[in-house]
Protein backbone atom coordinates (compact mmCIF):
# COMPACT_ATOMS: atom_id res chain seq x y z
CA UNK A 1 0.00 0.00 0.00
CA UNK A 2 2.90 2.35 0.83
CA UNK A 3 4.04 2.04 -2.77
CA UNK A 4 0.62 3.18 -3.98
CA UNK A 5 0.68 6.21 -1.63
CA UNK A 6 4.12 7.35 -2.74
CA UNK A 7 3.15 7.03 -6.37
CA UNK A 8 0.22 9.44 -6.13
CA UNK A 9 0.24 12.71 -8.00
CA UNK A 10 -1.71 15.39 -6.22
CA UNK A 11 -3.32 18.43 -7.81
CA UNK A 12 -1.15 21.53 -8.05
CA UNK A 13 -0.96 23.79 -5.01
CA UNK A 14 -1.55 21.16 -2.33
CA UNK A 15 0.51 22.12 0.74
CA UNK A 16 3.53 20.08 1.88
CA UNK A 17 2.53 17.29 4.30
CA UNK A 18 -0.94 17.11 2.80
CA UNK A 19 -2.68 14.65 2.61
CA UNK A 20 -1.69 13.71 6.17
CA UNK A 21 0.11 10.40 6.79
CA UNK A 22 -2.95 8.85 8.46
CA UNK A 23 -4.99 9.27 5.27
CA UNK A 24 -4.93 5.89 3.56
CA UNK A 25 -6.00 4.35 0.24
CA UNK A 26 -9.14 2.22 0.42
CA UNK A 27 -11.49 0.27 -1.78
CA UNK A 28 -14.76 1.49 -0.36
CA UNK A 29 -18.33 2.50 -1.22
CA UNK A 30 -19.01 6.13 -0.40
CA UNK A 31 -21.96 8.51 -0.44
CA UNK A 32 -21.77 12.09 -1.60
CA UNK A 33 -24.44 14.77 -1.52
CA UNK A 34 -24.92 16.24 -4.99
CA UNK A 35 -27.21 18.74 -6.72
CA UNK A 36 -27.37 17.26 -10.22
CA UNK A 37 -28.42 13.90 -11.67
CA UNK A 38 -26.13 12.68 -13.10
CA UNK A 39 -23.56 14.33 -10.81
CA UNK A 40 -21.68 17.16 -12.45
CA UNK A 41 -18.32 18.86 -12.00
CA UNK A 42 -19.94 21.44 -9.71
CA UNK A 43 -20.81 18.65 -7.28
CA UNK A 44 -17.12 17.85 -6.81
CA UNK A 45 -15.62 21.28 -6.23
CA UNK A 46 -13.17 21.22 -3.33
CA UNK A 47 -13.66 23.82 -0.56
CA UNK A 48 -10.28 25.33 -1.49
CA UNK A 49 -11.63 26.11 -4.95
CA UNK A 50 -14.61 28.04 -3.54
CA UNK A 51 -14.49 31.34 -1.66
CA UNK A 52 -13.54 30.45 1.89
CA UNK A 53 -12.20 31.87 5.08
CA UNK A 54 -8.47 31.34 5.62
CA UNK A 55 -7.75 28.21 7.66
CA UNK A 56 -6.25 28.70 11.10
CA UNK A 57 -4.20 25.50 11.20
CA UNK A 58 -2.26 23.41 8.69
CA UNK A 59 -4.70 20.54 9.31
CA UNK A 60 -7.70 22.73 8.49
CA UNK A 61 -5.89 24.08 5.45
CA UNK A 62 -5.22 20.53 4.26
CA UNK A 63 -8.85 19.50 4.70
CA UNK A 64 -9.85 22.29 2.31
CA UNK A 65 -8.21 20.22 -0.44
CA UNK A 66 -10.41 17.19 0.32
CA UNK A 67 -13.98 16.25 -0.57
CA UNK A 68 -16.34 15.00 2.13
CA UNK A 69 -18.01 11.60 1.81
CA UNK A 70 -19.93 9.28 4.11
CA UNK A 71 -19.41 5.53 4.04
CA UNK A 72 -22.52 4.70 6.09
CA UNK A 73 -25.85 5.59 4.42
CA UNK A 74 -27.39 6.18 7.88
CA UNK A 75 -25.07 9.17 8.24
CA UNK A 76 -26.54 10.73 5.09
CA UNK A 77 -29.97 10.68 6.71
CA UNK A 78 -28.61 12.09 9.96
CA UNK A 79 -26.73 14.85 8.19
CA UNK A 80 -29.95 15.84 6.45
CA UNK A 81 -31.74 15.99 9.81
CA UNK A 82 -29.13 18.37 11.19
CA UNK A 83 -28.36 20.49 8.15
CA UNK A 84 -31.36 21.98 6.29
CA UNK A 85 -29.14 22.81 3.30
CA UNK A 86 -28.62 19.08 2.73
CA UNK A 87 -32.32 18.18 2.66
CA UNK A 88 -32.79 19.16 -0.98
CA UNK A 89 -29.60 17.44 -2.09
CA UNK A 90 -29.53 14.16 -3.97
CA UNK A 91 -27.49 11.23 -2.72
CA UNK A 92 -24.88 9.68 -5.02
CA UNK A 93 -23.15 6.37 -4.38
CA UNK A 94 -19.70 5.72 -5.73
CA UNK A 95 -17.00 3.12 -5.39
CA UNK A 96 -13.63 4.58 -4.51
CA UNK A 97 -10.57 2.53 -5.46
CA UNK A 98 -7.08 2.93 -3.94
CA UNK A 99 -5.83 4.64 -7.11
CA UNK A 100 -8.50 7.35 -6.71
CA UNK A 101 -6.78 8.89 -3.69
CA UNK A 102 -6.59 8.60 0.07
CA UNK A 103 -9.21 8.91 2.80
CA UNK A 104 -9.15 9.86 6.45
CA UNK A 105 -11.94 9.20 8.95
CA UNK A 106 -13.08 12.47 10.54
CA UNK A 107 -16.13 11.49 12.61
CA UNK A 108 -18.38 13.77 14.60
CA UNK A 109 -18.21 12.08 17.99
CA UNK A 110 -21.04 12.58 20.41
CA UNK A 111 -21.31 11.23 23.92
CA UNK A 112 -23.87 8.48 23.85
CA UNK A 113 -24.16 7.60 20.20
CA UNK A 114 -21.65 8.25 17.50
CA UNK A 115 -23.34 10.21 14.74
CA UNK A 116 -21.79 11.03 11.38
CA UNK A 117 -19.22 8.46 12.48
CA UNK A 118 -18.42 7.56 8.89
CA UNK A 119 -17.54 11.02 7.60
CA UNK A 120 -14.29 10.91 5.65
CA UNK A 121 -12.10 13.43 3.91
CA UNK A 122 -11.13 12.20 0.46
CA UNK A 123 -8.06 13.66 -1.26
CA UNK A 124 -8.59 12.89 -4.93
CA UNK A 125 -5.54 12.19 -7.08
CA UNK A 126 -4.59 14.51 -9.93
CA UNK A 127 -6.38 13.63 -13.13
CA UNK A 128 -9.13 11.47 -11.63
CA UNK A 129 -12.61 12.70 -12.49
CA UNK A 130 -14.52 11.95 -9.27
CA UNK A 131 -17.97 12.36 -10.81
CA UNK A 132 -17.44 9.36 -13.08
CA UNK A 133 -17.62 6.89 -10.21
CA UNK A 134 -20.78 8.32 -8.63
CA UNK A 135 -24.43 7.77 -9.56
CA UNK A 136 -27.55 9.11 -7.84
CA UNK A 137 -29.33 6.52 -5.72
CA UNK A 138 -32.44 6.37 -3.54
CA UNK A 139 -31.78 5.40 0.08
Amino acid at each position, binding site marked *: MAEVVSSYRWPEGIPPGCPPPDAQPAAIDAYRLVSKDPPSDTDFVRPIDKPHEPAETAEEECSLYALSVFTDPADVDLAQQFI*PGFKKKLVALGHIEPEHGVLRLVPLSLKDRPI*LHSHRDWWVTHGFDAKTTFAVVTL
Partner: protein
Amino acid sequence: MGRLTINEIYVRYDGPRLFSCVNESGGYFLGLFVEEDDNDEVFVFAPASSDRLNAVRSGQMPLRHAFEAPLDGGVFVVRSSKTGLETSTERRRAGDIPTDWLPDAAARLNLETPTAAPLDVEQLEAEARSIGRTIAVFELDGPWTTTEFPLRPLGEVMRTIQDSIDSFAQVVTNNQTNRGAIQREILDETELTFYGQRAASFAFLVASAPRDRLFESDLVKRSLSELTTLIDAASSGTLEETLGRLHPRALSKYRDLLEQLDDLESGLTAIVSPPTGQGTRSTLTLDGVRDSLELVRSSLGPDVEQVTIEGQLIGVNARTWSFELLDERADRRYSGKTVDRARAQLLGLTIGHRYRAQLLSETELLPVTGEIHHKYRLVEIAPLHSS
Protein backbone atom coordinates in the same frame (compact mmCIF):
# COMPACT_ATOMS: atom_id res chain seq x y z
CA MET B 1 -22.80 40.89 13.29
CA GLY B 2 -19.29 42.27 12.83
CA ARG B 3 -16.27 40.22 11.86
CA LEU B 4 -16.79 36.59 12.83
CA THR B 5 -14.24 33.98 13.82
CA ILE B 6 -15.19 30.32 13.98
CA ASN B 7 -15.23 29.10 17.56
CA GLU B 8 -16.13 25.43 17.11
CA ILE B 9 -17.28 23.28 14.20
CA TYR B 10 -19.99 20.70 14.98
CA VAL B 11 -20.69 19.41 11.48
CA ARG B 12 -18.14 19.73 8.73
CA TYR B 13 -18.86 18.61 5.19
CA ASP B 14 -16.87 20.37 2.50
CA GLY B 15 -16.26 23.04 5.11
CA PRO B 16 -18.20 24.11 8.22
CA ARG B 17 -21.95 23.45 7.99
CA LEU B 18 -22.95 23.79 11.64
CA PHE B 19 -20.68 25.81 13.86
CA SER B 20 -20.42 28.45 16.52
CA CYS B 21 -18.58 31.69 15.94
CA VAL B 22 -17.76 34.80 17.86
CA ASN B 23 -17.57 38.46 16.81
CA GLU B 24 -15.07 41.06 17.96
CA SER B 25 -17.33 42.12 20.84
CA GLY B 26 -17.43 38.57 22.19
CA GLY B 27 -20.98 37.87 20.98
CA TYR B 28 -21.63 34.26 20.00
CA PHE B 29 -23.61 33.02 17.01
CA LEU B 30 -24.67 29.58 15.82
CA GLY B 31 -24.16 29.26 12.08
CA LEU B 32 -26.09 26.80 9.92
CA PHE B 33 -26.02 25.99 6.21
CA VAL B 34 -29.63 26.18 5.02
CA GLU B 35 -29.77 26.40 1.23
CA GLU B 36 -27.83 26.70 -1.99
CA ASP B 37 -28.44 27.33 -5.66
CA ASP B 38 -26.11 27.50 -8.64
CA ASN B 39 -24.68 30.83 -7.50
CA ASP B 40 -24.94 31.14 -3.74
CA GLU B 41 -24.78 29.32 -0.44
CA VAL B 42 -27.09 30.58 2.31
CA PHE B 43 -26.30 30.41 6.04
CA VAL B 44 -28.45 31.50 8.98
CA PHE B 45 -26.74 32.91 12.08
CA ALA B 46 -28.61 32.88 15.39
CA PRO B 47 -27.25 35.01 18.25
CA ALA B 48 -26.54 32.90 21.33
CA SER B 49 -25.31 33.61 24.84
CA SER B 50 -22.61 31.27 26.14
CA ASP B 51 -25.31 29.60 28.30
CA ARG B 52 -27.52 29.08 25.24
CA LEU B 53 -24.51 27.71 23.35
CA ASN B 54 -23.85 25.24 26.19
CA ALA B 55 -27.51 24.18 26.18
CA VAL B 56 -27.36 23.50 22.43
CA ARG B 57 -24.00 21.73 22.33
CA SER B 58 -24.84 19.54 25.36
CA GLY B 59 -28.09 18.42 23.72
CA GLN B 60 -30.26 19.91 26.46
CA MET B 61 -31.84 22.17 23.83
CA PRO B 62 -32.84 20.96 20.35
CA LEU B 63 -30.85 22.64 17.62
CA ARG B 64 -34.02 23.80 15.92
CA HIS B 65 -35.04 25.84 18.97
CA ALA B 66 -31.88 27.95 18.78
CA PHE B 67 -32.89 29.13 15.30
CA GLU B 68 -36.65 29.21 15.87
CA ALA B 69 -36.43 31.17 19.11
CA PRO B 70 -33.13 33.07 19.29
CA LEU B 71 -32.65 35.16 22.41
CA ASP B 72 -33.36 38.53 20.80
CA GLY B 73 -35.93 37.21 18.34
CA GLY B 74 -33.86 37.84 15.20
CA VAL B 75 -31.43 35.96 12.98
CA PHE B 76 -29.02 36.99 10.25
CA VAL B 77 -29.31 35.48 6.77
CA VAL B 78 -25.97 35.50 4.98
CA ARG B 79 -25.86 34.76 1.26
CA SER B 80 -22.37 34.14 -0.07
CA SER B 81 -21.37 33.75 -3.68
CA LYS B 82 -19.84 30.45 -4.78
CA THR B 83 -17.60 32.21 -7.26
CA GLY B 84 -16.58 35.49 -5.69
CA LEU B 85 -16.19 37.06 -2.30
CA GLU B 86 -19.52 38.93 -2.41
CA THR B 87 -21.76 38.36 0.58
CA SER B 88 -25.00 39.96 1.62
CA THR B 89 -26.37 40.01 5.14
CA GLU B 90 -29.99 40.57 6.06
CA ARG B 91 -31.56 40.63 9.51
CA ARG B 92 -34.89 38.85 9.77
CA ARG B 93 -37.34 38.01 12.51
CA ALA B 94 -36.86 34.36 13.39
CA GLY B 95 -40.53 33.72 12.66
CA ASP B 96 -40.00 34.88 9.07
CA ILE B 97 -37.46 32.28 8.04
CA PRO B 98 -38.87 29.34 6.05
CA THR B 99 -39.50 26.19 8.09
CA ASP B 100 -37.40 24.16 5.65
CA TRP B 101 -34.43 26.22 6.81
CA LEU B 102 -34.76 24.65 10.26
CA PRO B 103 -33.10 21.41 11.45
CA ASP B 104 -35.41 18.49 12.25
CA ALA B 105 -37.10 18.74 15.63
CA ALA B 106 -35.24 15.66 16.89
CA ALA B 107 -31.78 16.91 15.92
CA ARG B 108 -29.73 17.48 19.05
CA LEU B 109 -26.02 17.70 19.58
CA ASN B 110 -24.83 15.65 22.53
CA LEU B 111 -21.34 16.88 23.22
CA GLU B 112 -19.51 16.83 26.54
CA THR B 113 -20.06 20.37 27.78
CA PRO B 114 -18.33 21.26 31.05
CA THR B 115 -20.41 23.80 32.94
CA ALA B 116 -18.13 24.04 35.96
CA ALA B 117 -14.45 24.86 36.37
CA PRO B 118 -12.19 22.01 35.24
CA LEU B 119 -10.63 19.77 37.87
CA ASP B 120 -7.05 20.88 38.48
CA VAL B 121 -5.42 18.50 40.97
CA GLU B 122 -2.28 20.59 41.42
CA GLN B 123 -4.33 23.64 42.22
CA LEU B 124 -6.37 21.57 44.69
CA GLU B 125 -3.23 20.31 46.44
CA ALA B 126 -2.01 23.88 46.77
CA GLU B 127 -5.39 24.90 48.16
CA ALA B 128 -5.36 22.09 50.76
CA ARG B 129 -1.89 23.21 51.92
CA SER B 130 -3.00 26.79 51.90
CA ILE B 131 -6.10 26.34 54.08
CA GLY B 132 -4.59 23.59 56.25
CA ARG B 133 -7.48 21.19 55.58
CA THR B 134 -7.85 17.93 53.69
CA ILE B 135 -9.72 18.26 50.42
CA ALA B 136 -11.04 15.19 48.63
CA VAL B 137 -12.56 14.87 45.18
CA PHE B 138 -15.03 12.17 44.21
CA GLU B 139 -15.52 11.80 40.49
CA LEU B 140 -18.61 10.02 39.16
CA ASP B 141 -19.78 9.14 35.67
CA GLY B 142 -22.66 11.55 35.24
CA PRO B 143 -25.72 10.78 33.14
CA TRP B 144 -25.58 14.10 31.29
CA THR B 145 -23.15 15.93 29.08
CA THR B 146 -23.13 18.97 31.37
CA THR B 147 -21.47 19.10 34.80
CA GLU B 148 -24.67 18.19 36.60
CA PHE B 149 -25.89 15.20 38.57
CA PRO B 150 -29.34 14.12 39.80
CA LEU B 151 -29.78 15.42 43.32
CA ARG B 152 -31.32 12.40 45.06
CA PRO B 153 -28.64 9.79 44.21
CA LEU B 154 -25.93 12.39 44.66
CA GLY B 155 -27.23 13.11 48.17
CA GLU B 156 -27.25 9.38 48.91
CA VAL B 157 -23.66 8.95 47.68
CA MET B 158 -22.51 11.95 49.73
CA ARG B 159 -24.18 10.62 52.86
CA THR B 160 -22.72 7.15 52.37
CA ILE B 161 -19.24 8.56 51.88
CA GLN B 162 -19.55 10.40 55.21
CA ASP B 163 -20.89 7.24 56.90
CA SER B 164 -18.06 5.17 55.40
CA ILE B 165 -15.40 7.64 56.53
CA ASP B 166 -16.89 7.64 60.05
CA SER B 167 -16.76 3.85 60.20
CA PHE B 168 -13.24 3.73 58.70
CA ALA B 169 -12.18 6.15 61.44
CA GLN B 170 -13.23 3.51 63.94
CA VAL B 171 -10.89 1.09 62.20
CA VAL B 172 -7.88 3.41 62.14
CA THR B 173 -8.38 4.37 65.81
CA ASN B 174 -9.15 0.78 66.83
CA ASN B 175 -12.52 1.79 68.25
CA GLN B 176 -14.74 -0.58 66.26
CA THR B 177 -18.37 -0.91 67.27
CA ASN B 178 -21.07 -2.61 65.27
CA ARG B 179 -24.10 -1.30 67.11
CA GLY B 180 -25.10 2.03 68.55
CA ALA B 181 -23.97 5.44 67.43
CA ILE B 182 -20.35 6.11 66.44
CA GLN B 183 -18.31 7.77 69.16
CA ARG B 184 -18.86 11.55 69.34
CA GLU B 185 -15.12 12.31 69.32
CA ILE B 186 -14.73 10.42 66.05
CA LEU B 187 -17.70 12.13 64.41
CA ASP B 188 -16.29 15.52 65.44
CA GLU B 189 -13.01 14.77 63.71
CA THR B 190 -14.35 13.16 60.53
CA GLU B 191 -17.09 15.62 59.67
CA LEU B 192 -16.87 16.57 56.00
CA THR B 193 -18.33 19.58 54.23
CA PHE B 194 -19.43 20.02 50.65
CA TYR B 195 -16.67 22.18 49.22
CA GLY B 196 -17.42 22.55 45.53
CA GLN B 197 -17.95 21.03 42.15
CA ARG B 198 -15.68 20.50 39.16
CA ALA B 199 -16.02 19.26 35.61
CA ALA B 200 -14.41 15.84 35.22
CA SER B 201 -17.02 14.37 34.17
CA PHE B 202 -18.87 15.19 37.38
CA ALA B 203 -16.71 15.73 40.44
CA PHE B 204 -17.73 16.95 43.86
CA LEU B 205 -15.29 18.21 46.42
CA VAL B 206 -15.45 17.67 50.14
CA ALA B 207 -13.20 19.06 52.82
CA SER B 208 -12.65 18.44 56.47
CA ALA B 209 -15.04 20.69 58.40
CA PRO B 210 -13.61 24.09 59.34
CA ARG B 211 -12.56 24.16 62.97
CA ASP B 212 -11.17 26.82 65.21
CA ARG B 213 -7.63 25.45 65.22
CA LEU B 214 -4.43 25.82 63.27
CA PHE B 215 -3.66 22.17 62.46
CA GLU B 216 -6.27 19.56 61.66
CA SER B 217 -6.12 16.11 63.18
CA ASP B 218 -4.95 13.54 60.65
CA LEU B 219 -8.01 11.33 61.26
CA VAL B 220 -9.88 12.57 58.19
CA LYS B 221 -6.85 11.93 56.01
CA ARG B 222 -6.29 8.45 57.48
CA SER B 223 -9.96 7.53 57.13
CA LEU B 224 -10.06 8.73 53.53
CA SER B 225 -6.89 6.69 52.97
CA GLU B 226 -8.80 3.60 54.10
CA LEU B 227 -11.25 4.27 51.30
CA THR B 228 -8.53 4.77 48.68
CA THR B 229 -6.76 1.64 49.94
CA LEU B 230 -9.95 -0.35 49.34
CA ILE B 231 -10.29 1.13 45.86
CA ASP B 232 -6.66 0.36 45.01
CA ALA B 233 -6.96 -3.16 46.45
CA ALA B 234 -9.64 -3.98 43.87
CA SER B 235 -7.18 -3.57 41.02
CA SER B 236 -4.18 -5.06 42.81
CA GLY B 237 -6.04 -8.27 43.72
CA THR B 238 -5.66 -7.71 47.47
CA LEU B 239 -9.24 -6.67 48.25
CA GLU B 240 -10.20 -9.82 50.16
CA GLU B 241 -7.22 -9.38 52.47
CA THR B 242 -7.89 -5.64 52.88
CA LEU B 243 -11.56 -6.25 53.68
CA GLY B 244 -10.41 -8.57 56.47
CA ARG B 245 -9.30 -5.49 58.43
CA LEU B 246 -12.80 -4.02 58.43
CA HIS B 247 -15.49 -4.64 61.03
CA PRO B 248 -19.07 -5.33 59.90
CA ARG B 249 -20.16 -1.70 60.25
CA ALA B 250 -17.39 -0.50 57.89
CA LEU B 251 -18.01 -3.40 55.52
CA SER B 252 -21.72 -2.63 55.30
CA LYS B 253 -21.07 1.07 54.67
CA TYR B 254 -18.61 0.28 51.90
CA ARG B 255 -21.15 -2.17 50.46
CA ASP B 256 -23.80 0.59 50.52
CA LEU B 257 -21.47 2.91 48.62
CA LEU B 258 -20.67 0.23 46.03
CA GLU B 259 -24.38 -0.54 45.60
CA GLN B 260 -25.15 3.10 44.99
CA LEU B 261 -22.42 3.25 42.36
CA ASP B 262 -23.75 0.03 40.82
CA ASP B 263 -27.25 1.53 40.68
CA LEU B 264 -25.83 4.65 39.02
CA GLU B 265 -23.73 2.53 36.64
CA SER B 266 -20.78 4.67 37.63
CA GLY B 267 -17.18 4.07 38.56
CA LEU B 268 -15.51 6.21 41.19
CA THR B 269 -12.27 8.15 41.30
CA ALA B 270 -11.18 9.47 44.68
CA ILE B 271 -8.45 12.08 44.95
CA VAL B 272 -7.27 13.00 48.42
CA SER B 273 -5.19 16.12 48.99
CA PRO B 274 -4.08 16.47 52.62
CA PRO B 275 -2.65 19.73 53.99
CA THR B 276 0.72 18.03 54.39
CA GLY B 277 2.34 15.13 52.56
CA GLN B 278 1.51 13.44 49.28
CA GLY B 279 -1.91 13.35 47.70
CA THR B 280 -3.38 10.15 46.29
CA ARG B 281 -5.59 9.25 43.37
CA SER B 282 -7.49 5.95 43.17
CA THR B 283 -9.91 4.74 40.54
CA LEU B 284 -12.55 2.04 40.59
CA THR B 285 -14.12 1.20 37.24
CA LEU B 286 -17.74 0.07 37.03
CA ASP B 287 -16.52 -3.52 36.62
CA GLY B 288 -14.34 -2.96 39.68
CA VAL B 289 -17.39 -1.72 41.58
CA ARG B 290 -19.30 -4.90 40.74
CA ASP B 291 -16.39 -7.24 41.50
CA SER B 292 -15.75 -5.45 44.80
CA LEU B 293 -19.42 -5.69 45.70
CA GLU B 294 -19.36 -9.47 45.34
CA LEU B 295 -16.34 -9.72 47.62
CA VAL B 296 -17.73 -7.34 50.22
CA ARG B 297 -20.99 -9.30 50.33
CA SER B 298 -19.17 -12.56 50.84
CA SER B 299 -17.06 -10.91 53.56
CA LEU B 300 -20.26 -9.93 55.35
CA GLY B 301 -21.12 -13.65 55.60
CA PRO B 302 -24.49 -14.35 57.22
CA ASP B 303 -25.45 -10.64 57.03
CA VAL B 304 -26.20 -11.18 53.34
CA GLU B 305 -28.50 -13.93 52.15
CA GLN B 306 -30.59 -14.70 49.13
CA VAL B 307 -34.29 -15.29 49.80
CA THR B 308 -37.13 -16.39 47.53
CA ILE B 309 -40.55 -14.93 48.08
CA GLU B 310 -43.88 -15.24 46.34
CA GLY B 311 -46.20 -12.31 46.44
CA GLN B 312 -48.19 -9.58 44.81
CA LEU B 313 -46.43 -6.77 42.96
CA ILE B 314 -47.49 -3.56 44.68
CA GLY B 315 -45.35 -1.04 42.85
CA VAL B 316 -42.59 -0.50 40.32
CA ASN B 317 -40.68 2.66 39.47
CA ALA B 318 -38.82 2.16 36.21
CA ARG B 319 -37.02 5.49 36.63
CA THR B 320 -35.44 4.65 39.97
CA TRP B 321 -35.58 0.85 39.44
CA SER B 322 -37.35 0.37 42.75
CA PHE B 323 -39.97 -2.26 43.53
CA GLU B 324 -42.43 -3.24 46.24
CA LEU B 325 -43.84 -6.72 46.78
CA LEU B 326 -46.38 -8.03 49.31
CA ASP B 327 -46.09 -11.57 50.62
CA GLU B 328 -49.78 -11.94 51.51
CA ARG B 329 -49.33 -15.19 53.43
CA ALA B 330 -46.74 -13.72 55.77
CA ASP B 331 -48.34 -10.26 55.55
CA ARG B 332 -44.91 -8.78 54.90
CA ARG B 333 -43.81 -6.10 52.46
CA TYR B 334 -40.45 -6.11 50.65
CA SER B 335 -39.14 -3.05 48.85
CA GLY B 336 -35.83 -1.86 47.50
CA LYS B 337 -33.78 -1.38 44.35
CA THR B 338 -33.37 -3.74 41.42
CA VAL B 339 -29.90 -4.92 40.41
CA ASP B 340 -28.73 -4.13 36.89
CA ARG B 341 -29.23 -7.62 35.42
CA ALA B 342 -32.87 -7.87 36.64
CA ARG B 343 -34.01 -4.48 35.36
CA ALA B 344 -35.17 -5.79 31.99
CA GLN B 345 -37.37 -8.32 33.84
CA LEU B 346 -39.04 -5.51 35.75
CA LEU B 347 -40.35 -3.78 32.64
CA GLY B 348 -43.81 -4.84 31.55
CA LEU B 349 -44.81 -6.50 34.84
CA THR B 350 -48.39 -6.00 35.97
CA ILE B 351 -49.20 -4.39 39.29
CA GLY B 352 -51.48 -6.65 41.34
CA HIS B 353 -50.23 -9.86 39.69
CA ARG B 354 -48.29 -12.45 41.68
CA TYR B 355 -44.62 -13.15 41.09
CA ARG B 356 -41.79 -15.25 42.44
CA ALA B 357 -38.80 -13.06 43.30
CA GLN B 358 -35.23 -13.72 44.34
CA LEU B 359 -34.13 -11.02 46.76
CA LEU B 360 -30.80 -10.24 48.28
CA SER B 361 -31.44 -9.56 51.95
CA GLU B 362 -28.81 -7.37 53.58
CA THR B 363 -28.55 -6.05 57.10
CA GLU B 364 -28.08 -2.34 57.43
CA LEU B 365 -27.08 -0.25 60.42
CA LEU B 366 -29.07 2.94 60.84
CA PRO B 367 -26.52 5.75 61.03
CA VAL B 368 -27.78 7.58 64.11
CA THR B 369 -29.15 4.85 66.38
CA GLY B 370 -27.05 1.98 65.06
CA GLU B 371 -30.19 -0.16 64.94
CA ILE B 372 -30.22 -3.03 62.46
CA HIS B 373 -32.81 -3.40 59.75
CA HIS B 374 -33.00 -5.34 56.50
CA LYS B 375 -32.80 -3.95 53.02
CA TYR B 376 -33.60 -5.84 49.86
CA ARG B 377 -32.32 -5.87 46.30
CA LEU B 378 -34.30 -7.59 43.58
CA VAL B 379 -32.12 -10.11 41.76
CA GLU B 380 -34.70 -11.99 39.67
CA ILE B 381 -38.45 -11.90 39.15
CA ALA B 382 -40.82 -14.12 37.15
CA PRO B 383 -44.61 -14.53 36.97
CA LEU B 384 -46.25 -17.21 39.06
CA HIS B 385 -48.28 -19.36 36.69
CA SER B 386 -51.18 -19.54 39.14
CA SER B 387 -51.72 -15.76 39.04
